[in-house]
């Protein structure tokens, strides 16, 4: 026989997991549509990259990838320890720091592109680069707010809420994977 408290927490876990799966499917479909569009444009174009494109900066996106990777790593670190009850402040702060650094690196990317004369309306490829990164950063901002939402949990007297941490982390890692796909398909190949 389980206690009422156990039943309640199991319900919470189940409800949150299901909701999180739906949320990830939703955002996944949004990005999937963008990738579908990209694939169509790229595969049906006669010449790629479109004529007049100077080489894309590779350093800044690579740095962005490292930043977001580090951020995910520290968040995973925080999450694993939190789940067993250890509230480690440093990994969470570091993760937020790298997340904000990632967003800053995107601004650097945009200004670099503009200095090269590549604007959103220049051609279809730049349209894709700007649109994708804008949408991704928009979601990153929401995710960073989610991380800030976790801050009250590390106070000494705060109640343990592993679900909240798990869900925010899922969203964060999801965005990291999306960035990885973007980096690979847009900048690398």
């Amino acid at each position: 026989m389980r206690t009422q408290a156990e039943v309640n927490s199991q319900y919470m876990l189940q409800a949150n997991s299901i909701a999180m799966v739906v949320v990830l499917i939703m955002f996944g479909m949004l990005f999937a549509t963008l990738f579908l569009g990209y694939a169509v444009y790229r595969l049906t174009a006669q010449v790629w990259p479109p004529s007049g494109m100077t080489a894309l900066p590779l350093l800044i996106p690579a740095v962005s990838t490292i930043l977001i990777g580090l951020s995910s790593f520290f968040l995973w670190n925080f999450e694993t320890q939190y789940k067993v009850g250890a509230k480690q402040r440093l990994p969470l702060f570091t993760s937020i720091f790298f997340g904000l650094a990632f967003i800053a690196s995107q601004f650097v990317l945009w200004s670099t592109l503009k200095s090269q004369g590549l604007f959103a309306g220049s051609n279809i490829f730049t349209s894709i680069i700007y649109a994708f990164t804008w949408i991704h950063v928009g979601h990153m901002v929401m995710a960073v707010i989610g991380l800030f939402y976790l801050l009250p949990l590390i106070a000494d007297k705060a109640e343990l809420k592993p679900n909240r941490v798990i869900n925010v982390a899922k969203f964060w890692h999801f965005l990291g994977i999306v960035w990885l796909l973007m980096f690979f398909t847009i900048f690398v190949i």
Partner: protein
Amino acid sequence: MAFYEQPIHPKPTTFLSKYMISFDHKVIGKQFLWYGIFFLFVGGLMALMIRWTLAFPGVPFPVIGKALFPETGGVIPPDTYAMLFTMHGTIMIFYAITPILIGAFGNFCIPLMIGARDMAFPLLNMLSFWLAVVSGVILLGSLFTPLGAAAGGWTSYPTLSTLVGSPGTGQTLWSLAIFILGASSTMGAINYITTIITLRAPGMGYFDMPLTIWGLWLTAILNAIFLPVLGAGVLLLIFDRVFGTTFFLAGAAATSGSGDPVLFQHVFWIFGHPEVYILILPAWGIVSDLLAFFSRKPAFGAKATALSMTTITILSTLVYGHHMFTTQMSPLLTQTFMTLTMTISIPSAIFFANWLGTLWKGSIRFTSPMLFSLGVVFVFGLGGLTGLYLGTVTTDLYLHDTYFVVGHFHYTMAASVLLGGFAAIYFWMPKMFGMMLSEFWAKVHFWITMVGLNGVFFGMMMVGYAGMHRRLYNPFVYEFMQNMIPMNKMITYSAYLMGAAQLIFVVNFVHAIFFKKEKASDNPWEVGTLEWTIPSPAPHYNFDKIPVVKCGPHELGNPNLTTGRDFQYQTENLVEA
């Protein structure tokens, strides 16, 4: 045995917490209902203006014409006409049907019918409603921009919907409003899916759920998966309009590299086809239940109906290309879409047969919800069969973008959903507001609506077959359409009749809510689903004690019943022989 139950919150006291910022799913449901009914009338008025122009070109619109269009002396000008059919489509689909069937009845019925006290995420629920209000304000606001509201059709194909074809802010605001509404609906979808999976009362397996819940659940799943696709498409359109990207620009306008307007069509219809199923699934579920309730016997093949609806949900994702046959996709792709489209007939025919099987050897009570449900069987049968012409490529090449399509989708989408929605309102009125609507006037409403509805939409199919194409301000500049003037007049008269009939409903509804003294009993329809085990109107906590479910939702007419009732509540053990 311990199971999870949501806590009972104290009853809200202030006006604000009771009616405006309420977390209670029943209040949010009613908010969506008022919202949807308001937009139904705005969209309906627009339809009447469209019909006026088609029947009486050059004649000023009565009553409000001179005030709205002073420059033309009251005659509706062509650019306004384009705005009217665009907004009519947008409002009816996103701001009337979705809020009423999915927002209102989804919110109201789901927790009550599965035995829960509220949705899984009440705050998210409330935000979903207020976000929809923001979206509605933006959409209505777009009517007052200098160049007017969006006017490229509700499908807003580029390049007409890019700055090339639609220079004003109206189209941008339209796109923004749709995006926000999409966010609102997906928030609702998260709630519905999670609630149905996790908060069903103990003993309620998936096949013990009423079919209404099946319909709402499948709708929410489709919403969650496909609204983001529309969101992405519309977002890229906004980027094209505001930031100068080139996703959908082509032709002379694409000075800086070419985009692909047809890609928008693909993205739109990948969402668009599941969307039409999103709109009809709740009505299918509701009708499946109501036919059983008022035939006083279990729904014939209820499990098969649930599974058919699920199959249709899955198949609907694969058929979107039949909206695009005239864009000349590759023949292989075209053939594939045609064949896949046809497969949807199988599950549709199965649950249709089940509907008729429910009526067979029943003991039918012709109450107003039953009349409307029978109406749905008729109009959906007709509308569904006319889809066949549009699914075969060669006939579609002639019928695409004619009034035949308009007749078809109004039968399947507007008529079926409208009648289903009214069936739901008449049925759940006592549980929602605590009193019954006048049965007599409900029946008058039904018959006049049916006559008007069939006149309008069957007429449209006839003129469409005769070749009249869509979105025309004045069709009669064409020789071959001169013959169709009388039929167009007839369609307009039917439309005005149908519009007038809705006033009967409004008077009935307003009178019942604000002026009627007679309260409804707990279970006026004598059926056994969980919402009828509690008082009418439902108390704010729904269930005093969470019910334990012992049998299915359509336990009616069991010959071994000895209680004097001809039905069993879901909380009672099934009476065996």
